[in-house]
């Protein structure tokens, strides 16, 4: 018994040490975000001399015309939240009719969604951009450099996996529930919105987490559809533009990176169980 205890203590120490090493980049990130430029050059590893430098850096970041941090954060929030609403709602609707309609068309459409998950982004990205330009020429609706264009693209890329997840869940919902509601006089859409949608909550959480983390962090699609330096830009675009443009002001870059990860980290700490389960489930099934 004593040997087992000593063994566990050793393991605890090893794991704790690994854990600290694992987090060391975040230490570097935080301390340097609060230093002056001179301090970053002379003492990268130590703690900042005075934490008040943080405010000066923050003001510099918020006022920086190349970074436009506030506007970019707002755009990121708008793009992520609108995309999530349309992806979750429309995918749930599609999955429900696909499960409840037994026909060759519905099987074909579902198989098409599943097969499309193999298609890597790289093979559609170049023609997508010129196709969006063609749509603009033909219909007069601008798709590039707009919110609706990017959100529509996220619906296209995000719905396959979401439909797949909803599909699996809806198959397990007893049909009798819906038949009873129909007999009581509900129309089909009412059945969906009043009965099915509330039951879907656990998958909806998974769908929101998976898509939310992907869209919030996504770089390549916004890069192609919005472009660096555009009026509308997401946080990753803003940071990439800021780093790529001038002499590297690392203390400001570090603070910008820190600000970019704070919302996700806070969200993760609040809902880690859901997030870990959702991300693991989603990808293993997909």
């Amino acid at each position, binding site marked *: 018994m004593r040997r087992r205890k000593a063994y566990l203590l050793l*393991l605890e120490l090893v794991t704790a040490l*690994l854990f600290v090493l694992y987090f*060391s980049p975040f230490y570097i*990130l935080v301390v340097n975000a609060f230093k002056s430029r001179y301090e970053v050059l002379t003492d990268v590893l130590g703690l900042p001399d005075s934490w008040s430098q943080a405010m000066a850096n923050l003001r510099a970041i918020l006022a920086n015309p190349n970074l436009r941090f506030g506007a970019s954060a707002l755009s990121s929030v708008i793009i992520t939240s609108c995309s999530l609403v349309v992806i979750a709602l429309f995918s749930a609707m599609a999955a429900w009719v696909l499960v409840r309609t037994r026909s060759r068309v519905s099987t074909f459409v579902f198989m098409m969604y599943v097969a499309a998950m193999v298609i890597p982004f790289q093979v559609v990205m170049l023609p997508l951009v*010129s196709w969006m330009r063609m749509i603009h020429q033909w219909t007069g609706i601008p798709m590039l450099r707009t919110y609706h264009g990017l959100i529509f693209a996220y619906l296209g890329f995000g719905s396959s996996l979401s439909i797949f997840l909803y599909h699996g869940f809806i198959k397990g919902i007893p049909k009798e529930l819906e038949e009873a509601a129909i007999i009581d006089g509900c129309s089909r859409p009412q059945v969906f919105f009043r009965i099915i949608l509330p039951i879907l909550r656990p998958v909806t959480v998974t769908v929101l987490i998976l898509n939310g983390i992907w869209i919030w962090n996504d*770089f390549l699609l916004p890069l192609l559809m919005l472009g660096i330096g555009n009026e509308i830009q997401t946080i990753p675009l803003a940071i990439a533009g800021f780093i790529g443009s001038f002499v590297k002001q690392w203390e400001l870059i570090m603070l910008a*990176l820190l600000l970019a*990860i704070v919302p996700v980290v806070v969200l993760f*700490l609040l809902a880690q169980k859901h997030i870990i389960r959702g991300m693991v489930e989603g990808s293993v099934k997909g």
Partner: protein
Amino acid sequence: MRQSTEAKVVFWGFLSPTLFAFLMIIVIPFILGVYYSFTEWTGVAGASNAWVGLQNYADLLREKRFFYSFAVTAAYSLVSMVVINLVAFVLALLVTQELKGRNIYRAGFFLPNVIGGLILGYIWQFVFNSALPRLGDLLSIGFLRKSMLADPRTAFFALVFVVSWQYAGYIMMIYVAALQNVPQELLEAAAIDGAGPWQRLRHITLPMIAPAFTVNSFLTLVNSFKQFDVNVSLTGGMPTTTFAGEPVFATELLAMNIYNTALAMNDYARGQAKAVVFFVVLAVLSLLQVYFNKKREVEL
């Protein structure tokens, strides 16, 4: 049973938003993309694109930068697959012991996965270029003094290292789930029969979690093959090196090579041909994945 008109209207009404987006964003660009790869496509909307047959693909065979990028990506994917799985499995074994902080460890190791690769790459770029050389000075560790990102060979391993650091916690959680499904009675019975920890791991745990190995190997292989974000922010493809007498970018993975070909060098047709090759490789990997996962299921 014939479907009622209402059922049909609802079917198409509910399906159309995602179906429309899917056709416009994936299906049409995919078909266009395959077609463009056989033409002199310039990326300009509405310009006529002359059919050139397999010319773009034939050009790829002669392009050393592409060949090099392909080889580096293959090597990178295989090395990452091994490293990530190894680290993840060891971490999973640790955090499934009766440790006091095991929930904190699990969440902590997982955390990098919720942060974007672009941002993590920039953080690590700073660590490699500023923090580690400083640490090397202070502790007089020679090989740390020079940034790992400056040398072609070490830059490759820096890339593997950062992605493993990011992704291992995720793969760890899949192993944790598998490890928790190993029946405790089986391990206890083996312990009573005199099997040591190593024997129990080798003869009970490992065979029981074999399906998780298959799943994770493909997951890491495919994701490494598609790597872009960390590549852009950590090395940007740098430094340059020579390959078969030509200058190439030492850490330029395929996804970045495709992007650069089309958008930096303005050769859309060739970039698209590369993307189609990229797609074919991934499709083959996916088919293998389905095949191996199915085979496992039968065995169990």
